[in-house]
Structures are given as structure tokens and as C-alpha cells.
């Protein structure tokens, strides 16, 4: 049974409205882009990313984005996304916002805006801008460091600082992010019969946040930091604060990235995670990539001794990609995961597996797939 949110209806309506406009105006008046992909995954134990122990062919996704420049200062950006996996079909609104560009140093963004957090949150599901099929889970997984978008008002710009330059974002409003609650529910003694394998949405209100990225005189090298804080939209109304740092180097052949994040939900949960990733193109087509990522969760008021591995995630991965062009790539990869924060059995089976002392803390995953964009 698919989940059809108001967001998805809005996204499909935007596509429906834009389609006749595309045919009626000059090609550059309304600009259409899209991306998508498919992946197969098989694990030795547990479910993780596209992988199931039995193998799974069902991970597919696609997105359409529409940019409508109203004039040289005002542009409307929208994007809708559809994804399908072993659990269900999910249709969502990635973003829908208006941007008013006062100058290169200052623009105003209002609406449902991509969350400017870290290196890749704004291109979370775009496979043709990264070496692996998925982003490193220790930072971008359903731990809840960053939501895909914020609802509210933001300012953004870039400024020259001589041989350096800086880009910035500041924003205020609310955000919604995906979080896998299985570990927490397990520690609280739930039966997990109603817990989905999919991550669930967590809303935060009264959010203020920002990101600053410094582009160094060394071409392709930048460093930056992101942070936001807000109040969880639930009865306890705990404050939630997330802070992160990033290092990014890109040349024609090399991509080296590292990020670390820390989340603190007062009286509820803490998480620290990060990754290091390096990729090298030894021909224009072939790219080799390696990655290490980790995450450590601490849940307040629970006894984790029954299954301590549900609190952490440590992963190493190797990937080989063949880039037909920068718009179409075929990827194959191997992941070794230690810990069950993300790699775990189906939630409905978790309690029985732990009680039978059959929870496997090491998961091997093989994935391959194709991703494209236009």
C-alpha cells in the first residue's frame, strides 16, 4: 500500500501544470530535469540499503524537477520524487520554493527549500554526483542529522574574499527528517509489530540554522560547518540541536570528502557519526571508491545491554563504477557492516531473534545498479 502524502499530490500537480507550459513556451522558459536509478542488493544477514538476505530487485526511484525563471531575479523551483522498494511506494515533494536573487551575495528563498546541511543533503537522492549508490549512512542515514528540506525562509549567497571565497545559508522555520526508530522502540520494550522497516518522519519546529563553506585558494578544496536547532514537534517538546563539519576536495580525477556530525536531543538521545570517502577516476569511465563511516547512538533511560549492537554502526565499503557519461553510471559495490543500528532484521522479527540470541552483528552486502540524470 503506497503512502500518498499531501506533498506528493502537490508535486504531481506541479508536474501536471508545468507540462502544458513546457509545450507552450520557449524551451528555456521552463526547464525540466530529472534523475533516477535502480539497484539490486543481497546481504548475508539482516536488511540493509537495497539488500535483503534473499536478494532484492525492487529498489527504483525517479524524480522530476522544474525550474521556472519568472524574470532575471525571481525563479520558482519544484521537484517531486517517487521511490519503490520491498516495503512500499513512496511519493514525496523534494522541494517547492521561490528564490529572489537580489545580488550574487544575497538571495532570499521561501517555501519548502532543500536543507543546506553538509556536502550532500541537497542532492541526497541524486546518484550521478557520487561514487556509491547511497550516501554514507553514518552521516546521511536515517539517524536524523538532516532533513531533506526546511519549510520557511532562508538567505543564501556567495562572496569573494580575495583568493578565498565563502558561501553561506541561514534559515528559519521547521523541518521534517527521516529517522529509523527501531532501536529506540526495542530498548523501550515495544513489540515492534507496528514498526515499519522504513524510517519515519520526525518534525522539528522553531528551527534556526545555517551553513558556511569556505573555498580555499587550492582549487577544489573547501571546508565548512553546518548547524541548526529547534523544538521537537511531540508532547515532550525537547530541544534538538545538530552540528556538523565538512572537508571536500575535488579534482578531475580525485574526490575526497569527510564529514562529522553530532546530534543532541535533550533527555532523549545523542548521536555522533561521520565518514571518510575517497574516489579516483583511473580513466574517464572507470572510478574506484572506498569509504569508512560510523555512527554511535546513546538513548537516555534505557538499558542497552540486551542488544548493544543496536546502538552503533561501523561500515567499510569498496565500489567500482563505469561512467558511460556523467549522466549515466553503472555501479557495483561491497559493504561490510558491523553493528545493527541500520543493518538489522525486519522489525517484526527483531525481538524473537534477539531473544533466541541469533542477532548477527556483522552484515555483508553486495549491491549493483544504475543511476541516471538529465
Amino acid at each position: 500500500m503506497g503512502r500518498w502524502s499531501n506533498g506528493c499530490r502537490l508535486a504531481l500537480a506541479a508536474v501536471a501544470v508545468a507540462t502544458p507550459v513546457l509545450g507552450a513556451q520557449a524551451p528555456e522558459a521552463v526547464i525540466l530535469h530529472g534523475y533516477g536509478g535502480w539497484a539490486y542488493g543481497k546481504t548475508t544477514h539482516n536488511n540493509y540499503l537495497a539488500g535483503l538476505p534473499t536478494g532484492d530487485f525492487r529498489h527504483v526511484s525517479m524524480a522530476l524537477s522544474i525550474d521556472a525563471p519568472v524574470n532575471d531575479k525571481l525563479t520558482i523551483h519544484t521537484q517531486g520524487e517517487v521511490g519503490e522498494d520491498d516495503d512500499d511506494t513512496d511519493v514525496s515533494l523534494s522541494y517547492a520554493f521561490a528564490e529572489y536573487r537580489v545580488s550574487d551575495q544575497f538571495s532570499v528563498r521561501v517555501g519548502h527549500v532543500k536543507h543546506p546541511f553538509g556536502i550532500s543533503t541537497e542532492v541526497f537522492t541524486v546518484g550521478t554526483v557520487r561514487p556509491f549508490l547511497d550516501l554514507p549512512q553514518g552521516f546521511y542515514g536515517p539517524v536524523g542529522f538532516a532533513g531533506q528540506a526546511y519549510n520557511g525562509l532562508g538567505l543564501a549567497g556567495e562572496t569573494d574574499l580575495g583568493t578565498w571565497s565563502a558561501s553561506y545559508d541561514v534559515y528559519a522555520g521547521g523541518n521534517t527528517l527521516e529517522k529509523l526508530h527501531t532501536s529506540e522502540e526495542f530498548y523501550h520494550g515495544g513489540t515492534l509489530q507496528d514498526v515499519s522497516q522504513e524510517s519515519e518522519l520526525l518534525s522539528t519546529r522553531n528551527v534556526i540554522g545555517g551553513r558556511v563553506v569556505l573555498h580555499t585558494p587550492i582549487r577544489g578544496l573547501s571546508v565548512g560547518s553546518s548547524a541548526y536547532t529547534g523544538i521537537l514537534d511531540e508532547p515532550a517538546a525537547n530541544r534538538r540541536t545538530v552540528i556538523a563539519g565538512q572537508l571536500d576536495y575535488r579534482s578531475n580525477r580525485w574526490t575526497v570528502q569527510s564529514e562529522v556530525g553530532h546530534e543532541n536531543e535533550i533527555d532523549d538521545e545523542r548521536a555522533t557519526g561521520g565518514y571518510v570517502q575517497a574516489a579516483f577516476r583511473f580513466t574517464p569511465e572507470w572510478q574506484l571508491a572506498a569509504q569508512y563511516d560510523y555512527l554511535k547512538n546513546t538513548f537516555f533511560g534505557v538499558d542497552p545491554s540486551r542488544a548493544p549492537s543496536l546502538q552503533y554502526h561501523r561500515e567499510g565499503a569498496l565500489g567500482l563504477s563505469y561512467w558511460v557519461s556523467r549522466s549515466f553510471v553503472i555501479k557495483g559495490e561491497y559493504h561490510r557492516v558491523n553493528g545493527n543500528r541500520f543493518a538489522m532484521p525486519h522489525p517484526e522479527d527483531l525481538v524473537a531473534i534477539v531473544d533466541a540470541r541469533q542477532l548477527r552483528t556483522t552484515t555483508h552486502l553486495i549491491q549493483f545498479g544504475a543511476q541516471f540524470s538529465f
Partner: protein
Amino acid sequence: MRQFALVLVAGVALTIGGARRAMAQDAFVLVVNQANPITSLKGKDASQFFLRKRTKWPGGQAVQPVDQTESSPVRRKFSDAVHGMDVPSVKSYWQELVFSGRGEPPPERASDADVIAFVRANPNAIGYVARTANTSDVKTIILLPQLH
């Protein structure tokens, strides 16, 4: 001795890189509309115009950059010399901006003649064409040396 060798290797690498960039720069010329008062442009400024990091001419008009298609040899030379990146890396740069809702790449034209026609028709346009192209309908400007 080891330090000397490192300095020597770095010096040779920089010299080779600079020579390659200079050779690439000899393969194309920048063109603007004849009404545009500009006569020269620093490499960094040209890069920022084509990557849309700067969107205004000094007079305040909106810059209209025009690229050549990805397979064009002159675009490869331009990209190496001005951006210090190959064309696929520039494409990746645009993918990130497009899908984060932060910008659109310049329009592309398939030939020198098409670029010249675009620049001639748009007073705020800037493009690049092969040095051998007929540029009598537009204005060529000097690309000042680039310090990468």
C-alpha cells in the same frame, strides 16, 4: 637533497600545467556583443561568469553566458584553461546546482557560428569560439593570464 628534489618535481609540474593551460588558451577567443564596452577579462572573472557565480557586468546588466556543446573541442580547451576543470567535472558541478535548486547551466550552442549568432543577438552575452572562427560580427576581448 630530498627537499630539493621535491621542489624540482613541484616546479616541473607547475610549469607543465601552466604550459598546457597556455596552449589551451591559444585555441579560443572570448567574444561579447559589439555594444559591450569591456575589452579584457581576468581568467577568474570569466570562470565566474560561465559558472554563474557572478551574474552582472560591471554596469549592472545581467550576464548571458553561452557554452558550446560538451563534445566540442573548443569547449574542452576553454574548460581546461578558464575553469581548470575538464568538461565532465563542470557537468558534475552543474548537476549539483541544478538538483539543489541553485542554478541552471548556460545554454549550449553547437558551433562557433551559432555562438556568434547568439552573442550578436544578445547585448549582454559572452561566449567563446575557436581562434580561427570569423568574429567580425562580434567583439573579441583579451583573456588576462589566469593564476590557478
